[in-house]
């Protein structure tokens, strides 16, 4: 009997842990109303393709369009980067006020495959960043986004990446403004940006 109640308590604890874990894991990425909650200021310090450390501080005064992805991603990442490229073209003379940034969540492989030729192929304005594992984790945490490596024998090198596919808008003061969910069209992103410029 005594053992039974222990078991019940353990089951309750395990269930609570699962619920807590799920909440922590899913809450940030599903939250479209982050801007309504207390404002936060994401930050990163990550190497660009030439090894220079780039930080959020150097982009104050500009809007940032930040996307986390990996260059071996055949479907989601090219779709979003194509939208970003279209937005940059359509901004015309205002493009100088917006810095698009691609942050690799698969930095070691992306550095090896070449980061700059990838981002440039979409648009020369896109800055590709690939830091260490620790720096990448820290950047993702500050944006409240999720990513993880998934073992997959049917993928190149035996793994693929699961990640938050949103596009994040940061204001000239460095504060988080909003997320554009995956699939938001270039004209929608453009009109949002134009209303702020």
């Amino acid at each position: 009997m005594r053992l039974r109640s222990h078991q019940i308590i353990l089951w309750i604890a395990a269930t609570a842990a699962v619920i807590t874990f799920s909440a922590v894991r899913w809450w940030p990425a599903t939250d479209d109303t982050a801007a309504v909650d207390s404002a936060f200021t994401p930050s990163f310090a990550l190497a660009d393709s030439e090894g220079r450390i780039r930080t959020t501080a150097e982009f104050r005064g500009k809007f940032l369009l930040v996307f986390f992805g990996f260059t071996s991603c055949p479907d989601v990442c090219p779709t979003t980067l194509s939208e970003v490229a279209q937005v940059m073209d359509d901004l015309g003379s205002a493009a100088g006020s917006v810095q698009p940034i691609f942050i690799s969540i698969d930095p070691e492989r992306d550095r090896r495959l070449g980061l700059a030729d990838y981002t440039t192929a979409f648009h020369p304005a896109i800055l590709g960043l690939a830091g260490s594992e620790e720096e990448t984790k820290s950047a993702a945490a500050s944006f409240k986004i999720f990513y993880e490596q998934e073992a997959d024998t049917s993928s190149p090198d035996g793994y693929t990446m699961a990640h938050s596919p949103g596009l994040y808008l940061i204001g000239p003061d460095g504060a988080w403004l909003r997320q554009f969910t995956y699939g938001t069209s270039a004209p929608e992103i453009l009109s949002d940006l134009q209303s702020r410029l």
Partner: protein
Amino acid sequence: MKHFLLATALVLSAPAAMACETVTIGDLTVEHAWSKVTIGAGRPGVFYVEIKNTGTSDDALVGIATPAAGMPMLHETVVQDGIASMPHAMSIPVPAGQSVQLAPGGYHGMLMGLTTALKEGDSFPVTLSFEKAGEVTVNVVVLSLRAEGPDCADAGQ
């Protein structure tokens, strides 16, 4: 020999209109086969297509093969609870009387182990294997990075 065939296939660059070709096998119609430019050969390419089943029995796409890539596989982009992942699709249902699209953000062929980088205007064959209808080969046109699909708006074609 394989390389020679591939080179021949790629040299025979086709106009984008080729993506508007329609191939049929049994009750299945396969059209709008396209791919996107890749940045180098070290990253996987992608394969999109539309399949229409005009028959009365369900079928399923169970595999793809192409001389352009050593390891082509079917995948599905799934965005669940704000996280995108890309599980391997063992088979893609093509129900009776319905159309299925392999399109950005959903089912797609992932072309791993590309023999050569895919360039805009190139074309290469992909053989689709269906559970019941068997195999059919389509020509796949490589469109630009920003393409959202072939432009086949002209109903007369």
